[in-house]
């Protein structure tokens, strides 16, 4: 017993030693990979360079002042007379005027003389000139330095030594020694660099502010889909889901054709001022009508065979109202955008005008999406009763048909993304694999007699079968779609020999993918039947999480590079990059806050008959507002930090300026930018921390 214990102890000790050695080797490898070299920092030239750069960085060029130069002169006799009748050195005259004294009062070439100055400006620059009889100024550097200028003492005096120049044929003449001193004129003011940095700093802060505020709404919406506690209970009957999904493209077509026309009309109505009142009136009465019809449907007593037709009509009506309202608002925005060209209102006018333009550009997609959702939801409620009555074989048959349609649509959509770039080509096989994952386990359950209670063995067989299906679909689809060519050689699928349908073009690549989707989707849904429940929430949750995580792993600087290509150098590119990154990061942070809330109120509201939207508005939203504010502040703080450097890739803000200054070796100017960044970042850090503390 004891033996075994000691041997175990010994083994553990041995293991520890081995592990320590391994860690040491890894660390040593890292040391050489990162090129750590202790000699380089000690080279004198490098030390001098870094010293200079640091000195300039730490002497930021914040202020600037004008100077006048005041000269003081004194005579000096070249070559002292041989008879020793040297002139007596001049005495300081006293008084307030700057003046100098040279000792001795006579000297020969190459001799060192001392120049004393009085009443110069303290701690200011000065220089000594030698003026011979020809009147030419010769700068005399102070002995032992290589600078033209020197700095006066704190009391305004100086004592420096200079060497008497060798000037031929001037012996016996009286030369002049001149001291030029710099005297400040007027008050100091901020330098031009400071002005520029301030301007760019304001741009930086607003860049961060706009990016943060643009990201709030999208990330708040996404956060609900990325919250597991909200999404897990979202389940749907497979039949309803398939009906809804199959109707999406139909709704999109109808939406872009019909609703799109209404939307464009509304935009134009909004733009032309004359029609406005009438159009607003018509639309608001439409809106009221829609609201009233749907509320009446709500307020009636329990009637399980509720009036589907009215419900469907109100859904379609609502879609019309939504698109028309958005279009009208957009048009009015454009109208307002042209109203003011001067004054403060010009900014507002410009802003609202751009929003209007955005709506005008996006009205067709908006109409398409609204139409898709309206038609699919109307279709689902229409199909509800029929699906409820369907049992047995017909349910599986219908499932197969709908599944084939939906699988084809899904794979068609994925494939049209997949043909855009080589690595995106990996998406269709993945989608096919997820469609296929349930087929073999379902076949097993159907054709092998199942025990009353699921056994562990049965479960592992099904998992294994599921993996077989996944891998088969992955490999098969990849082979059919020639994914290997795309990944290895980077060639994209051919876009020749296409079939054109209204609204879409089908390339062979896409039709093949759709065929695979139809087979796999049809099989899966036929086996499951329309009665099966589909974990829609779980799927949405996983998809949202995956996208958010992928986006978050791309640094904003890299996103900035791409956006600079798209929209050009400037703060706009920075705004886009930071917005995208903030959406991903806030979406994750927000969703974690939702996952932390008290689930009691959600349950309570569900039990009162509130629908999902109402439950979220009344049970979830009040609980998440404080953490949302806190995390938004935190994100703004981060965005300010990032926007100071996003300029390095051309994203605007103070970073762009800083990079230029560094490239031009103007470290004193760079110092101003660095100082400004430090101040703004620390102030915001403090502000966001204190606000966060207050709301939490």
């Amino acid at each position, binding site marked *: 017993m004891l033996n075994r214990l000691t041997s175990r102890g010994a083994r553990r000790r041995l293991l520890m030693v081995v592990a320590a050695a391994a860690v040491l080797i890894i660390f040593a490898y890292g040391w050489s990979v990162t090129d750590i070299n202790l000699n380089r920092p000690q080279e004198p030239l490098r030390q001098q360079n870094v010293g200079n750069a640091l000195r300039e960085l730490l002497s930021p060029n914040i202020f600037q002042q004008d100077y006048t130069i005041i000269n003081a002169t004194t005579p000096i006799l070249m070559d002292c007379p041989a008879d020793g009748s040297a002139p007596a050195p001049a005495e300081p005259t006293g008084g307030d005027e700057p003046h100098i004294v040279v000792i001795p009062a006579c000297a020969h070439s190459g001799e060192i003389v001392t120049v004393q100055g009085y009443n110069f400006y303290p701690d200011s620059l000065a220089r000594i000139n030698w003026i011979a009889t020809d009147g030419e100024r010769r700068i005399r550097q102070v002995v032992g330095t290589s600078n033209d200028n020197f700095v006066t003492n704190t009391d305004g005096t100086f004592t420096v030594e200079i060497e008497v120049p060798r000037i031929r044929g001037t012996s016996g003449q009286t030369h002049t020694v001149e001291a030029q001193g710099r005297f400040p004129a007027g008050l100091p003011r901020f330098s031009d660099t400071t002005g520029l940095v301030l301007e760019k700093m304001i741009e930086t802060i607003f860049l961060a502010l706009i990016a943060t505020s643009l990201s709030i709404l999208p990330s708040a919406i996404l956060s609900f889909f990325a919250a597991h506690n909200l999404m897990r209970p979202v389940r749907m009957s497979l039949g309803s889901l398939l009906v809804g999904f199959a109707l999406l493209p139909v709704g999109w077509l109808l939406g872009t054709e019909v609703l799109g026309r209404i939307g464009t009309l509304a935009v134009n109505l909004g733009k032309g001022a004359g029609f406005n009142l009438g159009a607003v009136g018509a639309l608001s009465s439409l809106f009221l009508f829609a609201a009233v019809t749907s509320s009446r449907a709500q307020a009636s007593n329990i009637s399980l065979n509720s009036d589907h037709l009215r419900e469907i009509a109100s859904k379609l009506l609502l879609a019309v109202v939504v698109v028309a309202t958005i279009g009208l608002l957009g048009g009015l925005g454009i109208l307002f955008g042209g109203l003011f060209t001067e004054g403060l209102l010009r900014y507002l006018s410009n802003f609202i005008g751009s929003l209007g333009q955005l709506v005008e550009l996006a009205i067709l997609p908006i109409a398409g999406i609204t139409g898709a959702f309206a038609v699919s939801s109307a279709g689902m409620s229409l199909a509800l009763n029929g699906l409820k009555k369907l049992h047995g074989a017909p349910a599986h048959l219908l499932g197969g048909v709908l599944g084939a349609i939906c699988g084809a649509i899904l794979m068609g959509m994925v494939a049209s993304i997949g043909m855009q770039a080589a690595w995106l080509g990996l998406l269709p096989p993945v989608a096919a694999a997820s469609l296929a994952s349930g087929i073999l386990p379902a076949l097993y359950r159907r054709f092998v007699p199942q025990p009353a209670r699921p056994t562990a063995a049965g479960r592992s067989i099904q998992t294994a079968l599921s993996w077989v299906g996944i891998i088969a679909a992955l490999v098969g689809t990849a082979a059919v779609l020639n994914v290997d060519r795309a990944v290895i050689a980077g060639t994209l699928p051919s876009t020749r020999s296409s079939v054109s349908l209204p609204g879409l073009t089908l390339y062979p690549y896409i039709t093949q993918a759709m065929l695979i989707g139809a087979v796999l989707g049809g099989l899966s849904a036929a086996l499951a039947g329309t009665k099966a429940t589909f974990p829609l929430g779980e799927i949405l949750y996983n998809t949202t999480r995956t996208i958010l995580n992928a986006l978050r792993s791309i640094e904003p600087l890299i996103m900035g590079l791409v956006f600079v290509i798209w929209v050009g150098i400037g703060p706009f590119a920075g705004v886009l990059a930071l917005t995208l990154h903030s959406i991903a990061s806030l979406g994750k942070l927000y969703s974690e806050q939702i996952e932390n809330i008290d689930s009691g109120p959600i349950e309570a509201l569900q039990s009162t008959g509130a*629908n999902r939207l109402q439950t979220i508005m*009344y049970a979830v939203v009040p609980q998440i507002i404080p953490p949302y504010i806190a995390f938004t502040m935190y994100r703004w703080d981060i965005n300010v930090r990032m926007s100071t450097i996003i300029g390095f890739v051309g994203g605007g803000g103070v970073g762009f300026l800083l990079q230029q200054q560094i490239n031009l070796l103007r470290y004193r100017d760079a110092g101003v930018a660095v100082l400004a960044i430090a101040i703004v970042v620390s102030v915001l850090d403090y502000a966001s921390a204190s606000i966060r503390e207050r709301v939490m």
Partner: protein
Amino acid sequence: MLIIENLTKIYENGFKALSNINLEIPEGQFVAIIGLSGSGKSTLLRCINRLIDPTEGRIIWRGLDITSATDDELRQIRRRIGMIFQQFNLVKRSSVITNVMSGRLGYINPLFSLVNYVPRVEHERALAALERVGIAEKAYQRASSLSGGQQQRVGIARALMQNPELMLADEPVASLDPATSHSVMKYLELLNKEDGITILCSLHFLSLARAYADRVIALKDGRLEFDGPPEQIDNERFRQIYGEDAVEVEIH
């Protein structure tokens, strides 16, 4: 009439929390559900408004099959069934009146809820409900600032907003002291007597069941152990339900 037929619930981990429950509850009864912790009381109550989906069996209320209702139908059924909870389940940061009004959401157009608009009548209805449970003066305070008993009365007011015909109460007084327990139970009794609301209430203390219920249902390990008037529970029955070593404690 609430009819429960062959109700069985097996949780996802395979645990059988209810097995083959059959019950018939006429309108206007005050029914207490008792049983040891883990006997399935909460599971039974939650199956009735389908906060939990039953595994097998049917629940039929006034001729409507709750177990096979679609989402829309279920919401319409749920808004006639009030529920109150041991932990009150109020939104603590919201005001009392907002909490009460949220009981009415099933009747309000969801589009209104999106912009947090509540019709004026509903506001008045909420004040009246608070009046009824005696805490109208607290209407504009935060729910978290109320005592436990007051919070449970807010919970009752919220359920009242639904105009319920059936009230499910899952250990409504388990986290309250005895005196407060009685005052909360009195409000439930009032709803039962005055409004004729059927009440299904799970309780920890048999004495409370004796004081308020017309009928007691006892669960043991997910099975129906007893169903009858409270007077019929003698010492022997009591030990059957709660185990050999149990002693009845009174709550006054």
